[in-house]
């Protein structure tokens, strides 16, 4: 059962051959609250995109609620190498996703509530949406000191950030989404969102503004994600004046949402997650047997566009350096791919042992920045 509703008749009427979620919404009513049954970050981002692209939002408001298993989500124009600790994420198996809206980097886990407010472009009003959230929290706990700022954050006790915002405006519709920290793993959050390479990277990508954070459950243990989501749903219904129950949707259901599979796949590709990084350059150095070697790279669309090694004369034969540089040019700025290119390089160029060793160490220096 993908759609859970009290009224089964509504479902059977709607499940005709050409029925989709849009027709279903029309039968349900004007404004709707949806909850996603999945905790997959890419699936939930694809669900957001699908609703934005295919649902008629001119006279309708939709609220989408979901939670995700641990993941890091960067904004549309951000640089993941600058924003998060990619080696740590790889070791822990935490996926990286890039969303289509702007804004900064967030860490998601099931203690973090995600809310997306869909409206027509004309009715786009972020302050109104945030007021729904703060009012919902104040309904639950009247003494709670939560307020939204003019940077569209929500602060707890005037100091701790518990919610960040991002938005996407299309031709006719818009969505504003934000997070809410209820019971997130704070130590994991801070270690994953700290990049070791921010000094060596120069870029114009949107930087994140780090702030001290706190969980709602830290101040009141009864404020868990389920309680808070319920409160937000009721406040939203009050604000927009409707009473339809919350619908749960499975974002992998292709026949209900034609095109959603492709949207999910598109969000998973390397070209989208890493390749959409605005142009940046890396300047670092590596010490090999007490010799300092400088490395300068320009990365465009996630691929190495320029690769320069600075080394003292005679440290490496020039042809080998040129051969290595041409191997690196055009390759992805990705440790996996670089390791494979290095092994192929060493195999196909018969190198003396010491030269092979130097190239190896050089490469490790490059990989450490990726």
């Amino acid at each position, binding site marked *: 059962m993908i759609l859970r509703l009290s009224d089964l008749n509504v479902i059977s009427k709607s499940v005709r*051959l*050409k029925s*989709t979620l*849009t*027709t279903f919404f029309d039968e349900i009513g004007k404004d709707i609250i949806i909850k996603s049954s999945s905790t997959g970050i890419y699936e939930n981002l694809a669900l957001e995109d699908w609703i934005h*692209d*295919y649902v*008629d*939002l*001119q006279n309708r408001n939709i609220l989408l609620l979901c939670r995700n298993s641990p993941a890091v989500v960067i*904004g*549309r*124009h951000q640089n993941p190498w600058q924003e998060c600790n990619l080696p740590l994420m*790889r070791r822990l198996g935490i996926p990286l996703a890039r969303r*289509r*809206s*702007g*804004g*900064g980097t967030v860490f998601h886990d099931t203690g973090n509530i995600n809310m997306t407010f869909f409206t*027509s*472009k*004309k009715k*786009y*009003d*972020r302050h109104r949406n945030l007021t729904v959230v703060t009012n919902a929290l104040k309904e639950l706990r009247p003494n709670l000191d939560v307020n939204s700022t003019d940077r569209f954050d929500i602060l707890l006790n005037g100091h701790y950030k518990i919610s960040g*915002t*991002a*938005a*996407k*405006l*299309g*031709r*006719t519709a818009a969505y*504003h989404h934000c997070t809410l920290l209820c019971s997130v793993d704070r130590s994991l959050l801070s270690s994953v969102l700290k990049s070791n390479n921010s000094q060596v990277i120069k870029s114009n990508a949107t930087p994140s503004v780090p702030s001290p954070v706190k969980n709602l459950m830290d101040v009141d243990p009864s404020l868990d994600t389920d309680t808070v989501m319920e409160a937000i749903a009721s406040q939203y219904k009050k604000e927009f004046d409707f009473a339809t129950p919350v619908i749960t949707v499975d974002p992998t259901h292709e026949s209900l949402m*034609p*095109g959603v599979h*492709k949207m999910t796949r598109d969000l998973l590709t390397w070209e989208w997650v890493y390749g959409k990084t*605005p*142009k940046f350059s890396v300047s670092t150095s590596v010490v090999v047997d007490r010799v300092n070697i400088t490395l300068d790279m320009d990365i465009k669309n996630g691929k190495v566009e320029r690769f320069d090694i600075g080394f003292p004369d005679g440290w490496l034969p020039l042809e080998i350096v040129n051969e290595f540089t041409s191997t690196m040019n*055009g*390759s992805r700025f990705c*440790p*996996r*791919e670089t*390791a*494979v*290119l*290095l*092994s*192929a*390089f*060493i*195999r*196909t160029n*018969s190198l003396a042992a010491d030269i*092979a060793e130097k190239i*190896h160490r050089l*490469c*490790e220096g490059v*990989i450490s920045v990726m």
Partner: protein
Amino acid sequence: MAAVITVRGPFAFMRRLVSARLHKHCCSRVQAACLAYRPHSYSLTAGQQRRFFRTSYAAAGPIMQFKLSDIGEGIMEVTVKEWYVKVGDKVSQFDSICEVQSDKASVTITSRYDGIIRKLYYDIDSIANVGNPLVDIETEAGEVEGPQEDVVETPPMSQEEHTHQEIKGQKTQATPAVRRLATENNIKLSEVVASGKDGRILKEDILNFIAQQTGAILPPAPFQEIRPPPPAPAVPSAPAKPKTPAPSIPTPVIPKPVFTGKDRTEPVKGFQKAMVKTMSSALKIPHFGYCDEVDLTQLVRLRSELKGLSESRGMKLSYMPFFMKLRNISFFLDVQIIAQAAHNIGLAMDTTQGLLVPNVKNVQMLSVFEIAVELNRLQILGASGQLGASDLTGGTFTLSNIGSIGGTYAKPVILPPEVAIGALGKMQVLPRFNSKGDLVKAHIMNVSWSADHRIIDGATMCRFSNMWRSYLENPASMVLDLK
């Protein structure tokens, strides 16, 4: 008003005048329509209007300056983050032009006009002001100036073929001939999925709808070609469909399937490039192959005895650690194929990116269990795409367990600068005769070696393989020679 002006020109001119006006209204897009007159100024001199259509653009169309419209929330400036078009690209109304960002909001700007991009006003990361021009679009001549306000419309159609998009409350777009086809087949236009531009329903859409409903591929309908209606509002004299022939069952005509797949040329890059380079280098090595059959019945027994012990140490024991270790012993005892002291035995691994060959370092110093632990570590890293440079380099010999996927014999390619490689086929239970002449069940695996004939000759390979095989067939003899 036309009624007031008396036209004194020839009748032919009069007719063309009227039909040309109707054409302009009826046709959806008049391609190079430089009509030689303006609607409200009639020239009375005949001979001027000979040609109504030109086949080429004699002059450029008007350049429309597309200004950055209001984003909302009182925002006055945005940063241009990405261009989706460049100068010279053809765009249609509602195509995406660029992505701008303002204060945590990412906005997709779509085109207001159809035409060709002639100028981009900003570079990436520059600040654009609301109300100032963003791009110049050369629209087609004769087009009416686009609306100043963004047109509010239902969301765009999906590009996917079988969209189930309903056309809500809008007048469905279809030519009269298509409408006729629909009425004749009792089809409601609102139920048909439109694939034409702007939600226009085409003849193919009706046919597809019918096919879906009846579940059959229909013979090509004997209809006339769909044409814009003639200017004179004549009653259609000829019926749209000629009478179907007499009662005999017509032979089914399957329309010739049109294969729309296209060949794709992709540049070789990344992993693929590495593979191409390695294999091209391998081609220089003169390979010779040598295959044999190994009876692993005893080894199977040994492994099942050791399984419990290994699992109590937290490790699942496979056959590979045995294959690797015994290979190493054979080296020492008889055949010194490589001068290298370190025996780093590689394992060919099939990953989502393709073939990777990480190696276990210094097999000569490791016990079978330690090799198993190391293999496990490499397999986990390989599966999650985290094999490092040191794991992938330094191999001196490779084993490929292609049999775990399938196959018996193979002809593996040596990975330079190594001198030999072995491919292990799958283990099968087969009937064999034992030394007493009884028929027994045996666990048989085939091994295929390839070696560099510049360095190794057939006899050497044979002796090495025999030695390796004898250890595997009599694992107890390992005990004598294990170091």
